[in-house]
């Protein structure tokens, strides 16, 4: 499966990693919903760190959509909340 970290690019991971990533993602969402800064930062670091650890970069000439897209590492809590509720900025 392919995961994109916004601002960094796409990584290829084994499907088997999904269970672990989903756990980390749930922790992140809980922190965003509760608006808790400390847990949010910890959860972001953990999730992105795990993706970088398990993934290998997709070659730049490959054109594939990602199965999952994650916020960039320096996103604030508010930015992540906006991303999840907004419409994105995708050019047609």
């Amino acid at each position, binding site marked *: 499966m392919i995961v994109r970290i916004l601002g960094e690019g796409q990584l290829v991971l084994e499907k088997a990693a999904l269970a672990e990533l989903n756990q980390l993602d749930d922790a992140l969402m809980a922190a965003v919903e509760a608006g808790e800064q400390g847990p949010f930062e910890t959860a972001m670091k953990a999730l992105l760190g795990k993706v970088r650890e398990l993934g290998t970069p997709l070659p730049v000439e490959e054109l594939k*959509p990602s199965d999952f897209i994650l916020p960039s590492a320096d996103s604030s809590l508010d930015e992540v909340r906006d991303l999840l509720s907004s419409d994105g900025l995708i050019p047609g």
Partner: protein
Amino acid sequence: MKRMSLIFKSKANKALDKYEDPRETLDYSYEKQMQLLQKVRRGVADVATSRKRVELQMKKLQQEGDKLEGQARRALELNREDLAREALTRRANVVAQISDLNTQYESLQGQEENLVRQSKALEAKVEAFRTQKETIKATYTAAQAQAQIGEAFSGISEEMGDIGMAIQRAQDKTQQLQARASAVDELMASGALDDPSGLGKDDITRQLEQLSSGGAVDDQLAKMKLELGGGSTKALEGGANASYANKNDEISDADVLKEGGAA
């Protein structure tokens, strides 16, 4: 983890749905990508320009801080601890603001480096799209092309979306920083704004100048009294501290940047 991916996917699908034969979309899409690539390059250049503007604003604030330190010294020389304290208090405030701006500025630099890297990756992807598009047009039927194109198309729009967001974020940051630097700047200049002479001297400078010219007059008076009383024939000399006016503490306004958001 599906949440954000869906945002991108639905956009790409919407764009593809417009065409009967997916192969028709290829040339149109590539053209559009080239236009977007231009926009991205411009966006990255704009961020760099705004960053440089913030840099200039910060330099100017740094000069203001140095000037206040000089004023504090002069005030002490003239035994005006109250003025010196006022100048140093203002300086501490400016220094704190600068250090805060500096932290933000460094993160902006990081964002900019990322943008440059991302736009290079996007160029490579657009080039890859061009190669694939020719292959698809030459070898596939419309039905076969559908799947092929869908994937390449979604892949490239996702890349565009990613860099579009990154540019937006960097631009927001530069605007925020410029606004903050301007606010500090205005605070600093508030003394100069009420200056009837229009020379841009702040209240501390004016007080110091009055003090030193006042001091010179007192010195001369004392001398005259001495001469009249003591019958001395010595000519008047300028007071030892006739001119404390220090040319260095008038910052030129030439480098004051007009307020204006990132283009």
